């Protein structure tokens, strides 16, 4: 058996007992079942993408007849998804920048600068964690319309600068930084803003990475506010297009599945690159992205 020590409830010395060994086998079996459940739908949607419409609606086989990439290429060019991909990219980049700067600075003020009265802001931020975001989407949309910010990325970018969870993550991290370094830079004559950019940010790479990954994924997957702001215009993102397809049923089922595949590629790439940070930070960075 493996040389790694067991770290769970079952310890190496338990393995003398036959029933524990059988139980251990069952645990592995169940973990494999979980893996199949988690991965099968993904595998299936890629396979389904190879089918044309006739095959998709009539075939009772899970495997496609041929593994020809032509249907994917056709869907991509027919729907003009390249432009939507570019829009999504612009939307994501702006959102991440806003998420880092605005939430970071607010967290810096609350955790390190602590001006008189900032406790109120801290409490308001913590309370906002409990308030669901979609609940105020109607008045938010009206505000955006009143300011004539419709059909622009600006409100979407800025909305990521107002994320209570990211602020809390920054606060928690900043509070763990060595205060002496920040104090030293202040005594050396750095302004608070200089201290932030020259001392605090370089020390905060781990939390910036976590917030960036969450923000990239959230901004890519977001479609409710983006739909309201961008609908009908030139700036529609991939997810907005997908949402329009699904509500207006303007595309065929097979094209739909290929669009789903296209919409999943960037998050999966992100996941492959950052899987270690993601699976390790999922807990500390709390409750789902």
């Amino acid at each position: 058996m493996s040389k790694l020590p067991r770290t769970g409830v079952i310890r190496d010395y338990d393995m003398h007992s036959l029933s524990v060994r059988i139980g251990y086998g069952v645990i592995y079996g169940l973990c494999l079942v979980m893996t199949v459940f988690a991965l099968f739908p993904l595998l299936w949607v890629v396979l389904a993408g190879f089918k044309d419409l006739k095959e998709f609606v009539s075939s009772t086989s899970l495997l496609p007849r041929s593994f020809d990439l032509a249907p994917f290429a056709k869907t991509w060019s027919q729907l003009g998804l390249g432009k939507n991909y570019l829009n999504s990219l612009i939307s994501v980049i702006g959102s991440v920048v806003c998420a880092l700067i605005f939430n970071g600075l607010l967290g810096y003020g609350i955790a390190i600068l602590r001006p008189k009265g900032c406790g109120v802001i801290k409490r308001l931020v913590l309370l906002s964690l409990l308030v669901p975001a979609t609940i105020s989407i109607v008045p938010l949309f009206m505000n955006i319309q009143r300011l004539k910010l419709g059909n622009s990325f600006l409100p979407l970018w800025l909305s990521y600068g107002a994320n209570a969870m990211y602020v809390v993550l920054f606060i928690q991290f900043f509070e763990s930084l060595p205060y002496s370094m920040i104090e030293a830079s202040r005594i050396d004559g750095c302004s608070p803003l200089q201290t932030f950019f020259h001392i605090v940010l370089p020390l905060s790479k781990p939390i910036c990475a976590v917030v960036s990954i969450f923000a990239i994924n959230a901004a890519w997957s977001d479609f409710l506010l983006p739909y309201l702001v961008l609908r009908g215009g030139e700036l529609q993102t991939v997810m907005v297009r997908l949402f329009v397809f699904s509500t207006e049923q303007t595309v065929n089922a097979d094209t739909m599945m290929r669009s789903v595949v296209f919409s999943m590629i960037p998050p999966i790439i992100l996941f492959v690159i950052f899987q270690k940070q993601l699976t390790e930070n999922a807990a500390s960075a709390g409750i789902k992205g």
Partner: protein
Amino acid sequence: MKNRNSDLIRRGRRREDLKAWLIMLPGILLMTFFVWEPLLESIRMSLYKTENVELVKFIGLKNFISVMGKSNFTQALTNTFAYTFWSLLIGFVLPILLAMLVGETVRGKGFFRTAAYLPNMLPGLAVIILWSAFFSGEKSGVLNILLAKLGVPTQTYLTRANLVIPIIITIATWKGAGATALIYMAGMASVNPELYEAAAIDGASVWQRVVHILLPSIKKLAGTLLILQIISVFQIMYEPMVLTKGGPDNASLSLMQLMWQYAFGGSMDYGKASAVAVIVTAILLVMTAVYSYFNNKESDWD
């Protein structure tokens, strides 16, 4: 002399405070614009007759009366509680079980963690559309293909009123359970391994160690995740919107979906939409308050 010094220090502090507030200002303004003001605004708006983005006339509670008087509200309210019930039944214990299982593995642990977390990374909308093909009532629906192999005839799923909510919850659980399991795993990893060893020396079986050491170690975490799960499932909206449009015959219509319909479903009745939002917020506040009351009471006993 002393007085002047402290005066200078105080003035210096005040200047520093001012600078700090200036640094926080952009973030505060954004939080106000995107979170705090809309929340208050939705309360105000729920009391007005609206026309497009204008608040036309103060009408007191008329929006609430009109919204609650319709049969689709009662249906949506019942459905939303049904969503919550099924979510607790299907989605609460499963992550704990997954965490216990994966936590015991040694070889392949990283792989299992990765597989469990992956669905959570996928865009929610894409997940719903993907699963719609699984639960398609056609012969080519994935579940029907699989069932046909077992000799079961073609079934319909999303058109059955009593199945549609459990199905939507199953999909949401598929997406979220693995990520929640990782949170539990972190909680379980904080147990001092010496405890297990001491218990084993005292003759505690594996099962006894699970019941008396492992499970108590995540009790508090489970309470927190429970209330968060309730809060999040109570706002379920786009899943039924995309999968079933609230059907069949409003059987999967949720409260938030009702809000969306009032606002963006053609009538643009933002006042009534806000009334629904206020009702949802009120229910959530009551549930959070009840939770924290019992939570405090319990920790008094500890």
